[in-house]
């Protein structure tokens, strides 16, 4: 692997890991506050899986550049994070959380299925393993989208509002990184344009079936992972508070 490809892959793995870490953070905020005890369990499970995936992607990066996953998670500043804005948005209500998780799960399941054929075998192996968990998430969140869309007037209104707000943000999942084309050319990662096509087809069908309407105006669509919402700083201030509290600590 030449240096330029390697750097591109490091950047991609960082973006993947940061998405999962921040999404897991938002999901984990529900622990103990869910609408039904069984859903506390299910969402905690999803948060653990997403956190586990973050660890997998940081681990693959570490194998390339020797970086320490905990340093990356707990000692980078907001401007150094490469997650998309979509996952930073506050958890909102149950409809907001379920819809975001659903839109992310469809993307992730499709991306992983394709990445399982990566020419970079560590990535192919990891993707093949992780995709099995994603299928479970997808079943769960897909069912929630349908229940809320076809439930009461209020649940439909709430999930439609979530869709109107999220649709534009979700599109950022398909914006390639500056050097991602190099990785696609080498067959290391899937082409996001293809993933997007499948994602649009699948989500559109399910959202319609669930009585929801795609927004006519997609709204704000973030384009660069160098940019963040106003929420990331405070999210990280909280997430990193213990780790940074004692700069001398070697072990946590």
């Amino acid at each position, binding site marked *: 692997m030449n240096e330029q490809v390697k750097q591109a892959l490091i950047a991609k793995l960082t973006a993947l890991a940061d998405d999962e870490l921040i999404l897991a*953070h938002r999901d*984990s*905020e529900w*622990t*103990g*506050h*869910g*609408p*039904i*005890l*069984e859903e*506390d*369990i299910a969402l*905690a*499970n999803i*948060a*653990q899986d997403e*956190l*586990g995936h*973050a*660890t997998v992607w*940081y681990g693959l990066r570490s194998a390339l550049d020797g970086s320490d*996953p*905990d340093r990356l*998670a*707990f000692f980078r500043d907001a401007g150094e994070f490469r997650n998309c804005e979509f996952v930073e948005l506050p958890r909102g*209500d*149950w409809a907001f959380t379920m819809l975001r998780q659903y839109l992310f799960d469809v993307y992730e399941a499709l991306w992983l299925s394709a990445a399982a054929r990566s020419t970079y075998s560590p990535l192919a192996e990891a993707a093949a393993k992780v995709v099995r968990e994603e299928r479970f998430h997808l079943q769960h969140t897909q069912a929630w989208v*349908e*229940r*809320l869309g*076809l*439930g*009461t007037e*209020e*649940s439909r209104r*709430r999930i439609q509002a979530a869709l109107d707000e999220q649709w534009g943000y979700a599109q950022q999942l398909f914006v390639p990184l500056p050097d991602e084309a190099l990785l696609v050319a080498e067959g290391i990662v899937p082409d996001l344009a293809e993933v997007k096509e499948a994602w649009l087809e699948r989500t559109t069908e399910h959202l319609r079936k669930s009585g929801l309407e795609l927004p006519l105006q997609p709204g704000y669509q973030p384009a660069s992972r160098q940019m963040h919402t106003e929420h990331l700083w405070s999210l990280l201030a*909280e*997430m990193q*508070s*213990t*780790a940074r*509290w*004692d700069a*001398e*600590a*070697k*072990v*946590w």
Partner: protein
Amino acid sequence: MPRKFGKPTDPDYEARLAEFEARIARGEKIEPGDWMPEEYRRQLVRMISQHAHSEVVGMLPEGAWITRAPSLKRKMILIAKVQDEAGHGQYLYHAAETLGVTREEMLEALLSGKAKYSSIFNYPTLTWADIGTIGWLVDGAAIKNQTMLAQCSYGPYSRAMVRICAEETFHHKQGKEMVITYAKGTPKQRAMAQDAINRWWWPALMMLGPHDSDSPNTPTLVKWGVKTKTNDEVRQEFINEHAPEILEAGLTLPDPDLRYDEATGNWVHGPINWDEFWAVVNGNGPMNKERLEARRRAHAEGAWVREALAVYAARKQQTAVAV
């Protein structure tokens, strides 16, 4: 399977009671649907639902630190732990349901403040070291109690305890490892660990319940094999295990009277502040209002979700019938 809860006014009560007590004396388990005194049922519903509520409320003080865990590994362990607590709440509610009470009734009793839950969860979690200390001391105390309850005469409760104890043992080990790590860590980590032990030690002793002399339910519960040990016996076991381990970790305990008694082999503790215990039990601990408010808020905010779920399920069923 007619469920039968006997009352002392029933004509056959004495004979049935004798048969029931003989079964317990033989070490048989009482199962749902078996005859049992109403008082046995009432005590079990009280204990099991309190226990379930404790798991659910107990998610709050620890859950609050998931977003602040200092490493990816600790974060993962903590989410899994809090998730296990939700799972314990779930099996315990199921166990209580076998006695003819519904989850909704139990939740209503919790949210209205009528039902109790463990006093320990009305204390705040002030630093990250509290998470390790809760695992070590609070789960440690809970395990002592639950190991005893695993021998309980009521089958569903006993089986739930066996399963829960296995998971709690894991949490206890993780908590202990954490505190010991910090006790050997930097000066700040060490001070944080010591402070957490200082704050949680007495509440952990208190959570095992009032002195035997102030525990009016204990004799009946012991006779019916619900409890097989008294509160003071369980508390002594807890101290005997934990006091030497904490001292060995290089930490101190906030009890100037604590000493090892050669003659009995027990660690003897100083006086427990029972006024504090009763204040907390009666709703005036540092976090009682906040914990209950958090549960009420989650329940109220989830109302529209549960309603949507019910409407959706009913519609699905209707469609299925129509087809």
